[in-house]
């Protein structure tokens, strides 16, 4: 298992390099002068430009910039922004917020999605099944930004149950509704997946055997069916952890949450690659790591799976 994990990590290296290079290149290709408007209503003095060039190597070819940048990044030196704020400070401020948001979303997805899907799968074509089917359809058809807008307007402005925007502290309670909003799509997908997987596994031979040898229904479903149905669900949840950081761009913007998504979005608009590249690298690393953890988790759930 250790060797498998190591091999997977090594395979990830070219993907990380490629993705970051791509992001770096596109940020570099962003039209616009990074010095424009930086020195008030006049052109920047020559020595300022020279100092900035020396600091950020803006006059160097792309590959030179990139390799120097990555060399620092590998040593956990995230550099400074054009405003000389250390990027690590910005990330340290934003990361806990996004993490809280992602955990809330993940919890909602796991609990609501799996419970609804499992019950629907166990009682196919029943009243609850139809309810789940209709609500997943609605959840899949309404884009996240629309849900966020309506939640903000309905719950926040109209009813006054929540504050329409999240404060700087971004407490768990404040993030509850935004987290649930982010979770809607994956909750629906998860519920549907759980439903079909459960229904499929209920027809499996080993379930018939378990019933035939007289096991109580609770044990057949709780141990045999559920455990075998969990694998695709865990896969989906793990992969979603990576994209939770992404759905965050939209929702964080609407609820004014100062997380990673908002951070990266604001700095793309400001042409500031010093923030965009490290945060995007972080996203890619989280995504790859989540994939790896999911793959390693298979072995725990299903002893038939061996890594070698």
């Amino acid at each position, binding site marked *: 298992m250790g060797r498998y994990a190591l091999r997977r990590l090594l395979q990830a290296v*070219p*993907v*990380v390099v*490629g*993705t970051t290079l*791509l*992001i770096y290149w*596109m*940020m570099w*290709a*962003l*039209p*616009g002068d990074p010095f424009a408007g930086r020195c008030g209503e006049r052109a920047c003095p020559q020595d300022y430009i020279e100092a900035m060039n020396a600091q950020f190597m803006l006059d160097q070819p792309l590959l030179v910039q990139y390799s120097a940048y990555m060399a620092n990044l590998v040593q956990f030196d995230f550099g400074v922004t054009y405003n000389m704020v250390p990027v690590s400070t910005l990330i340290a401020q934003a990361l806990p917020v996004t993490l809280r948001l992602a955990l809330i979303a993940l919890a909602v997805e796991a609990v609501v999605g799996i419970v609804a899907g499992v019950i629907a799968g166990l009682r196919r074509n029943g009243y609850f099944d139809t309810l789940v089917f209709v609500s997943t*359809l*609605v959840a*899949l*058809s*309404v*884009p*996240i*930004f*629309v849900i966020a*807008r*309506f939640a903000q*307007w309905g719950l926040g*402005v109209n009813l006054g149950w929540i504050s329409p925007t999240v404060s700087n502290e971004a407490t768990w309670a404040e993030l509850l509704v935004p987290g649930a909003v982010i979770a809607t799509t994956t909750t629906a997908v998860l519920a549907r997946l759980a439903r*079909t997987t459960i229904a499929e596994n209920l027809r499996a031979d080993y379930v018939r055997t378990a019933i035939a040898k007289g096991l109580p229904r609770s044990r057949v479903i709780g141990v045999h069916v559920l455990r075998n149905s969990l694998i695709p669900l865990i896969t989906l949840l793990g992969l979603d952890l*990576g*994209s939770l*950081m*992404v*759905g965050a*761009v*939209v929702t964080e*913007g609407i609820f004014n949450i100062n997380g990673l*998504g908002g951070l*990266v*979005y604001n700095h*793309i*608009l400001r042409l500031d690659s010093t923030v*965009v590249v490290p945060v*995007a690298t972080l*996203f*890619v690393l989280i*995504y*790859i790591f989540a994939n790896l953890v999911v793959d390693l988790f298979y072995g725990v759930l299903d002893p038939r799976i061996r890594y070698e």
Partner: protein
Amino acid sequence: MSEPASLTSSAGEAPRGLWDDAWDELKRRPIFWISAGLILVFILMAAFPQLFTRVDPRWADLSLSMEPPSSEHWFGTDRQGRDVYARTVYGARASIVVGLTATVLTTVLGGLLGMIAAYRGGWVDILISRGGEILLGLPFVLGAIIILSTFAGAQSDAGPATIMMLVIATLTALSWPMVARIARSAVYAVKSADYVNAARVLGAGPMRILFRHLLPNALAPIVVYGSLLIATFVSAEATLSFLGVGLRPPVISWGVAISESGDFIRQAFYLTLFPTIFLCATVLAFVLLGDAVRDALDPKLR
């Protein structure tokens, strides 16, 4: 991924093939007809908006600013005094054009690259597969924002067609690797099958083998994925337009309309409501169609 492919390979050559079965299955489902009907209405709306309204969506009368819905203006008027109903009807074009074109481009490009990767193997495979992984590693919304601000910023005076092309190209660039992966695994499963070898021995060229013998195996999973992709793209276009990096005026789009009306949501809720309903109905129609197509084409569910 390989199971459906191997099953279709045996069904594809039979007199009653997978596609006939799928069509029979589809015909019997009311949901398919409902979604197809809805989609037809939206396509008509996109192609001939004049059928639905005679009002010019760009005609602004400031004395009519922010009128609530009335018999004159069914959906009310916006801040510039433009008819919201006309603007909502004309907004269908952006969503439908972007959704359908991006889906066709994504499936064709991804399908071709995936099939070539599986068929040629070696360094071509490595290049296409790794290149795809790099793009998939890029978070979708983030990648789209970066690409669109890179290329769209350069053309701030771009016309509607250019802006739409940019959004379509961005969605395609970020989504083809998924299709390529599906096509690759479908082709990989049957690449060394006897019937493919037989075709090669009989002197069939790579083109003929690819399109006559390998493509039919990859087609069903690609069509299933593609039919679900349309809804995603319609929704993604609206999201990007809402964020201000996708479509933008002068293009009339539901995403732009929802974004613009957000500031007046307390005074004029209808400004947000109607484009939202149309957007959600379109996505819903494509989700239903995708579901129906998947159920009909996926032999596992039979």
